[in-house]
């Protein structure tokens, strides 16, 4: 029963942090190349533009939710299960979500990279 709680926490963490990454990525693409913008309009103007972007703000909110779900997950399950399971699964869900929602070209190379990193993260915790 306890592991059911831990796994539902893992599912919530994976979903919210994937949503967060996708929203942050979309928001920052809307803002534009930060390095170039800073040279043109200055750091403060760039910062204001980022903080006013709705996708960025929603992304931060999703990340905060993911963080608190992680805290709950850790109180229900083992650190050695919750952290590596959620981190490695997030690499895979991000690849799927980036393809669907951000229209990124996730080619074979990127799939292999995501799977290698996801597997490596699991081994690090083993």
């Amino acid at each position, binding site marked *: 029963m306890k592991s059911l709680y831990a796994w539902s926490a893992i599912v919530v963490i994976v979903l919210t942090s994937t949503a967060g*990454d*996708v929203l*942050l*990525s*979309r928001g*920052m*693409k*809307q*803002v*534009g*190349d*930060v*390095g*170039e913008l800073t040279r043109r309009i200055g750091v403060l103007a760039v910062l204001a533009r*980022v903080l006013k972007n709705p996708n*960025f703000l929603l992304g931060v909110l999703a990340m905060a939710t993911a963080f608190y779900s992680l805290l709950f997950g850790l109180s229900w399950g083992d650190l050695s299960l919750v952290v590596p399971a959620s981190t490695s699964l997030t*690499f895979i869900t*991000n*690849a799927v979500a*980036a*393809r669907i929602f*951000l*229209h*990124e*070209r*996730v*080619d074979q*190379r*990127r799939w*292999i*990279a*995501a*799977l*290698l*990193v996801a*597997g*490596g*993260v*699991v*081994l*690090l*915790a*083993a």
Partner: protein
Amino acid sequence: MTFRKYLVLAGVAFFAATGDGFIAHGMKQVGNVSLHHLADIFLVVLNPVIALGVLFLLVFFACYMTALSWADLTYVLPATSVSYVVLTLIAKFALHENVSLTRWLGILMISAGVGFVTQGPAFTPPKEKSGDLVAASVSARMEP
């Protein structure tokens, strides 16, 4: 990809790993935070090591957002997973933890993944008439 951009990616990995390392180290100094004194969680930042960790994680977030402003999410995430390798090396050589063979194997797999993704393009150019919100803002930064 310019040298500066690789520096930003390195910054993401470096500040994520060291920030987490500082916070882990500081939390061990502070000890357990009781659920009955949840407000204590706000006081932990008074610990200088944790404060430094928070500062490093803020720098990490700035680097991460900068990277996402010119590179794909599916490029940035694997490319910056070097942080796990850095964190393990810190654990081994600074914190003198025992790093098992499986962990070294994990490091090898992550490094291979990083190598794979960084060989390819960093950015998917938007389609001409996709009607995407993104299209308008990216035209200025097409580069190889």
